[in-house]
């Protein structure tokens, strides 16, 4: 359509007294919103091109720029909000599915913000993490119900041999971020940070770039419905394999990488033609029922000689508890649950914003169901979907998760400003792009340092909170819901979460 009815979403304002016409903003905006007029020696801006990524604001050496939501409003209407009206305009103009990036931004309740933690006082001393050991080490994988131990001549020896485990320095893992959706520099930063820190990262559907094989022992590789990049060496290089059935950002549909982002390297790694849209099928076409999943799990275990744990990732949906139970019995060593706040590089907006359930409720119900069936020890729960801080992480552990996947937090640590235009491939921060000019902006060394700083900071905060509860090992908080209380929750929400209301 020649004429759009859409007003700019953002307004870019320049303080002319502070602008020095250095043109950094002109050079740095991939959407070419700023322009230098040499004749008049001014920098002007076309706000309709602005996506709100704040690159120019951050780079401006004199802080001369402000970007804000366009204050222009429609007539007040609680039902027909500006957002829904504009979405209809967009669809009327293009006939297309609305696409977006990152996670659900709608105001569904955030249960983390309705749960508070305990602290020990008087009857039980709190523990000081700076002076006493405070243990966060976590093992993910299948555990036996009991151990076979024999005693001979007063010496105790262990007969049971355990299934393969992943050893984590703390219960936080980098979530699945596919190479293709993110740049090579971003992947490298995640891989090297996980490797150096002592946790893991997940390749997502993008396959594993050959230059990242050296971080293999700290890599979880994904086997998704498109089977991108899945071959023998890929499986052998990894520490664990994850079968991706679904993800929280788009339950029920497959991954989506627009052709613009399928560069030569991406095409080599994913084993698909350059420039073609990488659309993963909605289901795995060899998994149409739970027994088919069992078949794939064991095929992968056979292919890797039972030396690596196999994880199965599902989006958190209504029947998560029953599905998880089936997955455990099908042989999954780790259940990865991705809630409605989970992020993505590209997803249809309607699906991202309307399908799936909050991870808090999913963790609680899956953990409870597995315990009721007496099989909780057979698989570890790895929860994903919008963990924003160390307090979210610790609450997830208290609800029953073994560890937590962070995706958006990791990207934000690297510089993401959540402008949600990842699917265009024009990420000004060098994260969600394959354009070499833009990719350079993400220095993998700096990004690695930022990621490790985030993990260190959260590690310390978790230790402080644990110590405050009078606990010196994370195992004693895992599933210990008595240390949580609900604030402002309904009776059924309290019941599903399995926590008491604050005051009781």
């Amino acid at each position, binding site marked *: 359509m020649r004429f759009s009815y859409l007003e700019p979403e953002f307004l870019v304002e320049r303080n002319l007294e502070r602008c020095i016409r*250095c043109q950094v903003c002109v*050079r740095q905006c991939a959407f070419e919103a700023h322009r230098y007029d040499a004749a008049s020696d001014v920098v002007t801006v076309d706000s309709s091109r602005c996506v709100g990524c704040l690159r120019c604001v951050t*780079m401006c050496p004199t802080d001369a720029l402000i970007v804000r939501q366009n204050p222009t409003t429609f007539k007040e209407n609680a039902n027909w909000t500006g957002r829904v009206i504009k979405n209809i305009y967009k669809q009327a103009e293009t006939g297309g599915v609305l696409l977006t990036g990152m996670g659900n931004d709608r105001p569904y309740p955030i249960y983390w913000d309705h749960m508070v933690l305990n602290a020990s006082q008087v009857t039980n001393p709190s523990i000081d993490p700076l002076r006493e050991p405070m243990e966060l080490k976590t093992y993910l994988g299948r555990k036996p119900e009991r151990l076979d131990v024999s005693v001979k001549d007063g010496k105790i020896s262990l007969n049971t041999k355990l299934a393969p485990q992943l050893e984590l320095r703390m219960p936080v893992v980098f979530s699945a971020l596919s190479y293709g959706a993110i740049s090579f520099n971003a992947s490298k930063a995640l891989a090297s940070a996980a490797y150096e820190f002592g946790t893991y990262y997940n390749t997502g559907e993008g396959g594993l770039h050959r230059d990242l094989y050296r971080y293999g022992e700290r890599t979880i590789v994904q086997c998704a419905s498109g089977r991108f990049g899945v071959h023998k060496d890929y499986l052998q290089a990894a520490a664990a394999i994850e079968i991706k059935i679904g993800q929280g950002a788009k339950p029920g549909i497959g991954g989506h990488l627009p052709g613009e982002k399928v560069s030569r390297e991406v095409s080599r790694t994913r084993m698909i033609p350059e420039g073609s849209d990488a659309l993963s099928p909605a289901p795995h076409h060899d998994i149409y029922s739970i027994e088919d999943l069992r078949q794939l799990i064991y095929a992968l275990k056979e292919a890797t000689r039972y030396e690596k744990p196999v994880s199965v990732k599902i989006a958190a949906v209504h029947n998560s508890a029953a599905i998880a139970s089936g997955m455990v019995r099908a042989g999954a060593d780790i259940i990865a649950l991705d809630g409605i706040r989970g992020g993505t590089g590209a997803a249809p907006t309607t699906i991202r914003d309307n399908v799936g359930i909050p991870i808090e409720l999913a963790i609680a119900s899956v953990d409870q169901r597995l315990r009721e069936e007496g099989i909780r020890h057979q698989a570890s729960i790895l929860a994903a979907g919008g963990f924003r801080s160390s307090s979210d992480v610790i609450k997830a552990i208290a609800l029953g998760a073994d560890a937590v996947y962070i995706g958006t937090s990791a990207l934000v640590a690297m510089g993401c400003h959540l402008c949600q235009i990842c699917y265009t491939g024009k990420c000004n921060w060098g994260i969600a792009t394959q354009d070499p000019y833009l990719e*350079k902006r993400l*220095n993998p*060394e700096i990004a690695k340092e930022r990621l490790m700083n985030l993990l260190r900071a959260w590690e310390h905060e978790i230790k402080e909170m644990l110590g405050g509860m009078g606990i010196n090992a994370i195992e004693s908080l895992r599933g210990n819901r008595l240390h949580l209380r609900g604030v402002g929750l309904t009776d059924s929400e309290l019941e599903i979460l399995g926590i008491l209301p604050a005051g009781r």
Partner: protein
Amino acid sequence: MKRVYAKEEVCAGCRLCEIWCVVAHSKTKDIIKAFNEEFPRPLPRVQVEEFGSFSFALQCRHCNEPPCIEACMTGAMHREAPDGPVLHDADKCVGCWMCIMVCPYGAIARDETLKKIASKCDLCYGEEEPACVAHCPNEALVFEDRGE
């Protein structure tokens, strides 16, 4: 001696190095005044070279045997210390631009406004760290001794 080295794989082509070089060599050292009020505006002594998506910041290499010192007829190009940077004395300079012609890196810029004086990197002599290195947002410039 310590020199500035560029890491082109992480140069974002933003040219903030050029801007802060100007500020460091301005009279006021205030970025807004340096650009909006000072005349003539000092030249940056570092230049970002770009070719397609490839870019890096280039400044004087402070060669061990600098051709510019040999070519300078007034002795404006000189070294204070044998392992120190090559410095330019603006008072002695007559604007013959022989240094510009002989520099193998093209690292010296002509000052078109005053026509007389060339502008050249002095490694921010006297400061702890050159301004370009300190202000690069992506750590694409490092100040280190590589024993060369």
